[in-house]
């Protein structure tokens, strides 16, 4: 295999990875750091059309438009927080995969802990009852029923 062919093969192999990572549009980033920042940010944002996908992975047309918007805002020197705010102002907290802690999301954040506590409470009561009751627990007498 000639050197040129080998180099070409190497190059295509190297690209195979990146093509998969950013399936869609090659954007003219100023630096690699900015590209990494872009990838990180769009991974934290939710695609509104296909809501189980993030902006980075989605092929939806709106997702592409919003990626372009994020890219433009980045070129204007906006911070990640500013860009998120820009999107939240238009699409509500729904676009954030990590919703902020505020009265409207308390149930979301603390609900699982509450349910866990409630479960622990039930277990505690049951265990106590059983311990206190000691022998008082009805021992099922074998009356021939298999169930």
């Amino acid at each position, binding site marked *: 295999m000639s050197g040129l062919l080998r180099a070409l093969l190497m190059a295509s192999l190297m690209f195979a990875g990146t093509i998969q990572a950013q399936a869609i549009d090659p954007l003219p980033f100023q630096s690699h750091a900015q590209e990494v920042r872009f990838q990180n940010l769009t991974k934290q944002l939710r695609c509104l059309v296909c809501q189980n996908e993030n902006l980075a992975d989605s092929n939806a047309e709106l997702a592409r438009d919003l990626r372009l918007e994020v890219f433009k805002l980045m070129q204007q020197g906006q911070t990640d927080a500013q860009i998120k705010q820009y999107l939240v102002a238009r699409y509500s907290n*729904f676009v954030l995969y990590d919703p902020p802690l505020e009265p409207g999301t308390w149930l979301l954040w603390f609900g699982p802990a509450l349910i866990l506590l409630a479960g622990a409470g039930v277990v505690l009561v049951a265990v106590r009852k059983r311990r206190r009751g000691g022998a008082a627990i009805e021992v099922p007498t074998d009356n021939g029923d298999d169930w």
Partner: protein
Amino acid sequence: MSRLLPFFGFVLLVALFGFGIWWNTQHDPNEVPSPLINLPAPAFVLPTLDDPAHTISKASLLGKPYVLNVFASWCIACGEEHPTLMADGNELGIPLIGYNYKDAPEDAKTWLNTHGNPYAMVITDRAGRTAIDFGVYGAPESFLVDAKGIIRYKHIGPFTPQIIARELKPAIAELLKEAP
């Protein structure tokens, strides 16, 4: 009594699941509530479908409430909604303005010629850039904008005669009551 406890637990779970199913028939779980309700509509300048050289801006529409209906010829749900707009669009008491979203003007014109045109005027946003400011994420979507340019109501998805009667018309009536 304590033997019945698991049964009550089961009934509770059934009730919870039943409520979940009922809730999802009443609400679209994919609906993203707009944060723009009761906030000024974004400023826009968009060409009309009839004459691309002629533009309509938010400022030029101030002073009178209107309903902005986002539609596209490629949008299947818009086709479902269309007969409703044809029937009720004229009876709203305020203009129904079409917002042609990411559509080729020729396609939009053909579509309106074929199915009828319920709009007082149609503005076009081919790139979909202004639609982002409106928080549009699909079509059809509809905005009720008051005389001061404030978004008062938004409906996501196709209008049905029921939704127009139950939500849109009362919202319009309230606007007209405020500003004579």
